């Protein structure tokens, strides 16, 4: 599976991956084993191969899995998803919120021995905003008015207006200026053999097969116990599962069926610890609000009432997930525990539809002005989403709504339907980034082709809250904004939020020191160890 990647920023908010987490998962007691010891190797599998190990040029999760261990940012998310200093020891935000001053750590060395200084940070900033760099991540840095290295260990940035997500954007991997400055970054050998400041040194890349990293003895937080990190490319999920059982890999994310039905043998449980915690993602049914059909709020509310989310979780995830009421992950600071959401209530759905003017016609399908209530749910080739759509189809049929399902290949789904707005309803998912700023998905200005508010949700109050929320560093004020936002979304139901799935990793039980936390299990990877007598791999 993809490693839960909470330490590495920028966090990708693409449609597929589910990675990080929240809420302390249940840990299993370890057997006796011995004190922490150096050595052994941790082997994990990935269905994708990293594309480029200079993170500013990559956009896939595999590249970030590796980059997260090889590089550091100035800041990072800790195990509770709060920002903490990484290469920056500390930082100050000026009173007006416009200037951030980072105080960098002394004595940090690049893997080739050169010292890390503010020059590296400045270079990383410049190369990211350079028009000649083909990167997808320049936007946050473009908000910066002025960036300067005051001295080798002080870095200051100034913004035109206060911008809360700015801080998290400095979690981007810092690149070595002494190796890249003045060169074409797209042709640098570092993209195949990176040099960073992180806990693991890059050792070897066998294309299409594996990447090998070794522990950095000079890492500023201390040498990691596990000697080697091996990232095997195993494109097929069934193969990966067999490799796990045969001992070829030490960790993988299980599917709900594997977790609850296929891995409960005493043999498996003796060899692996299974963990379960909410993934940083949610699945939703989104309505195209440009269509008259969905413009009436009561209709959207009725559809949510008619859908049984618990049944979906039981059927699709075998219970390995929880109901989603809004766009945030349960347990994080922006998540509002109680919102006035519409729970499963077919009678209420029928009432709301009647109020909106829909009356039963022939064949039991609702009608209004002679037109039947019928629409198509569009989704991509994802088995869970297809099952979801089928369950929804059956439930909506019961209240007299006719649903058709259409499954599309991803590329044509995005270009021919999402970008052109030619869809009625979509069943998709978002990953949830640790920063609660969701301007791009909900602000009314983000409705152009290829922008993410493709359902055309427009609400002046939401627009105001989004701008206010990203315009202050005060967590209490931000929380108030996002709480209100969740109330409005619950009332408006532009999406029917369906569920937050669980991440279900299994890790070989010889690894000790794993501390499940809201961010998942990878946050303290450098503290994991294998007791001497249990070490298996050289």
């Amino acid at each position, binding site marked *: 599976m993809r490693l839960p990647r909470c330490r590495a920023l920028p966090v990708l908010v*693409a449609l597929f991956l589910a990675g990080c987490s929240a809420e302390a998962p249940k840990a299993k007691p370890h057997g006796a084993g011995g004190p922490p010891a150096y050595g052994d190797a941790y082997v994990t599998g990935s269905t994708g191969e990293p594309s480029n190990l200079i993170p500013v040029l990559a956009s896939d999760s595999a590249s970030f899995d590796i980059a997260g261990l090889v590089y550091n940012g100035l800041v990072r998310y800790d195990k509770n998803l709060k920002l903490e200093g990484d290469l920056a020891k500390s930082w100050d935000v000026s009173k007006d919120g416009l200037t951030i001053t980072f105080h960098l750590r002394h004595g940090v060395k690049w893997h080739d021995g050169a010292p890390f200084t503010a020059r590296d940070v400045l270079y990383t900033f410049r190369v990211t905003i350079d028009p000649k760099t083909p990167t997808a991540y320049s936007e946050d840095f473009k908000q910066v008015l002025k960036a300067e290295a005051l001295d080798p260990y002080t870095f200051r940035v100034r913004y035109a207006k206060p911008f809360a997500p700015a801080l998290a954007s400095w979690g981007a991997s810092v690149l070595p200026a002494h190796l890249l400055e003045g060169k074409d970054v797209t042709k640098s050998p570092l993209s195949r053999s990176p040099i960073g400041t992180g806990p693991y040194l890059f050792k070897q890349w066998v294309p299409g097969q594996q990447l090998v990293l070794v522990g950095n003895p000079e890492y500023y937080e201390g040498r990691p116990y596990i000697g080697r990190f091996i990232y095997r490319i195993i*494109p097929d999920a069934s193969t990966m599962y067999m490799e796990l059982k045969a001992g070829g890999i030490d960790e993988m994310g299980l599917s709900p069926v594997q977790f609850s039905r296929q891995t409960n043998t005493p043999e498996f449980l003796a060899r692996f610890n299974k963990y379960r915690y909410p993934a940083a993602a949610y699945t939703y049914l989104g309505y195209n609000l440009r269509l008259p059909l969905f413009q009436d709020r009561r209709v959207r509310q009725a559809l949510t009432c008619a859908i049984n989310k618990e049944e979906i979780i039981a059927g699709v995830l075998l219970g390995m997930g929880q109901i989603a009421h809004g766009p945030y992950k349960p347990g994080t600071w922006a998540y509002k525990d109680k919102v006035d959401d519409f729970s499963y209530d077919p009678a209420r759905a029928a009432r709301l539809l009647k109020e909106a003017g829909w009356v039963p016609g022939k064949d039991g399908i609702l009608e209004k002005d002679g037109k039947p209530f019928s629409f198509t749910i569009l989704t991509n080739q994802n088995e869970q989403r297809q099952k979801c759509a089928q369950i929804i189809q059956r439930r909506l049929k019961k209240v007299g709504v006719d649903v058709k399902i259409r499954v599309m290949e991803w590329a044509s789904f995005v270009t021919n339907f999402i970008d052109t707005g030619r869809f009625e309803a979509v069943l998709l998912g978002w990953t949830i980034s640790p920063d609660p700023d969701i301007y791009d998905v909900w602000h009314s200005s983000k409705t152009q082709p290829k922008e993410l508010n493709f359902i055309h949700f427009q609400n002046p109050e939401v627009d105001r809250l989004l701008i206010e929320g990203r315009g202050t560093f005060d967590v209490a004020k931000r929380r108030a904004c996002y709480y209100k936002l969740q109330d409005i979304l619950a009332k408006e139901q532009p999406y029917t939020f369906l569920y937050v799935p669980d991440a279900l990793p299994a890790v070989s039980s010889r690894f000790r020191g794993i501390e499940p936390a809201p961010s998942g299990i990878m946050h303290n990877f450098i503290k994991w160890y294998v007791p001497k007598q249990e070490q298996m791999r050289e």
Partner: protein
Amino acid sequence: MTKYLAKRIAMLFPLLIGITLITFLVIHLAPGEPVDMATAMSPKVTAASRQRMREFYGLDKPLHVQYVRWLGHLAHFDFGRSFAPDHRPVTDKIVERIPVTLSLNVIALILEFCLAMPIGIIAAVNRDTPLDRAISVFVFLGFAVPTFWLALLCMYLFGVKLSWLPISGLHTLGSDKLPALLRLWDLAKHLILPISIATFGSLAGLSRYMRSTMLEVLSQDYITSARAKGVKERVVIYKHALKNALLPVITLLGFSLPGLIGGSVIFETIFSIPGMGQLFYQGVMARDYPLVMGILVMGAGLTLVGNLLADICYAFADPRIRHGRG
């Protein structure tokens, strides 16, 4: 003969250009651009940065300009740089993958011919006997069973249950420290499953072909006269009949030439073998135009050369063609 050859070779170039033109159009017809595939649904990407990436790859130019540009590079045997985020030269990416695919396919091809030809001959000689039927059932079983399913079953049995063979990949972790001979053995163990399953799946085609050509030859007059002369049945079959029955096989060999560098996606995915099939599949999914075009051009080139070679060999082997009006 020389004239025939010259004509055939001259024909190759317009054909090749035609193929590139069609493939270029088809891949650009597929929805989505490389930039879209990398940035779709990512909130960090703005229209401006997307435009910047399109310019970087030259996607903002009209299609015919892009094609001519690409053709110009090709004339210098330059396939260009990949549109994937690694920006590596396409040639590097292909060269890195060819040895694996090529050696796997060559071994599988040799095995296939070594097994399928005797099977076909035996079936032909014992036509309509229970043996013939048993062989038919066996080879069609291999043909009909979905390879990925069979592969998974075998991996589970030999890899997980019995632990006799490794499941996927090409090397065991740490095998690079072993002495050369053991390393080779390690590699061989990894190849047993993929190669035997690939061979099992491909037996049907060639063995049935062999059987039918053999039957055709065996019904010819000169075989009857050889038998009438009292030549031993073994000599009739292996000396008189086989030689002629082998002729069409040359064509088949020629056809398999492009197949040698083309891998099977499903197969390579299941066994985690980093071959051409996977590379091509990833290229198509990411709309990596230069990579896709590069692989297709190589495939097309080899197909043409393979056909040409087959024709030439045929001409050498069969006097009727050599002296006929080719």
